[in-house]
């Protein structure tokens, strides 16, 4: 399966600032997604990152707060804007459509642990 990397692996940020998280895959993939995992909680889908077009956001998530880019089939970014302590979470990218991998299965990056003070 594909090798998925995320940058940064962790960060501590001040309230009101923004952080951009990068997700890089070593092969072309069909679909990429961004999830949030709040402390002690399960995963919640933020949005589907569409290549060459605007992301598709889930209920409760908006583009102004979580702008997403996907300029090509191997890379995506998620920005957490105007951060507050409630944004402290692990942010994970995932993907499907990797050649040779399990059909219909999502594979996850290592995650970015964000702490907002």
């Amino acid at each position: 399966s594909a090798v998925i990397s995320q940058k940064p692996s962790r960060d501590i940020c001040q309230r009101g600032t923004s952080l951009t998280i990068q997700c890089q895959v070593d092969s072309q993939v069909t679909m990429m997604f961004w999830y949030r995992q709040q402390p002690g909680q399960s995963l919640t889908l933020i949005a589907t990152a569409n290549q060459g077009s605007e992301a598709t956001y889930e209920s409760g998530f908006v583009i102004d707060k979580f702008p997403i880019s996907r300029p090509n089939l191997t890379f995506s970014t998620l920005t957490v804007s105007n951060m507050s302590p409630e944004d402290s979470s692990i942010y994970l990218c995932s993907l499907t459509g990797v050649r040779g991998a399990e059909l219909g299965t999502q594979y996850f990056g290592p995650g970015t642990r964000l702490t907002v003070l």
Partner: protein
Amino acid sequence: AQSVAQPEDQVNVAEGNPLTVKCTYSVSGNPYLFWYVQYPNRGLQFLLKYITGDNLVKGSYGFEAEFNKSQTSFHLKKPSALVSDSALYFCAVRGNYNFNKFYFGSGTKLNVKP
């Protein structure tokens, strides 16, 4: 609507004993079910999935899961637990209308003691 439930926040088992991590599902239509494991400070790793076919699915690291339609369950099992199996386990179901949307359970922390 699709959902999965993991009734146990934590499971404790001694090394060498069999382990079971429980998951029940609620779906309209045929379920596509998954198990993932999350080690500390790591992302989720895919363990196994059920789409159709044999009710007993074998996956990575010696794990298996049994699909039971009458009980709407998909419990994760391993015949002999290892200390290194200690981690957070998530059950997930794929959306029937949006195939890209996965619904995750709340997670079960597995503690394997030497």
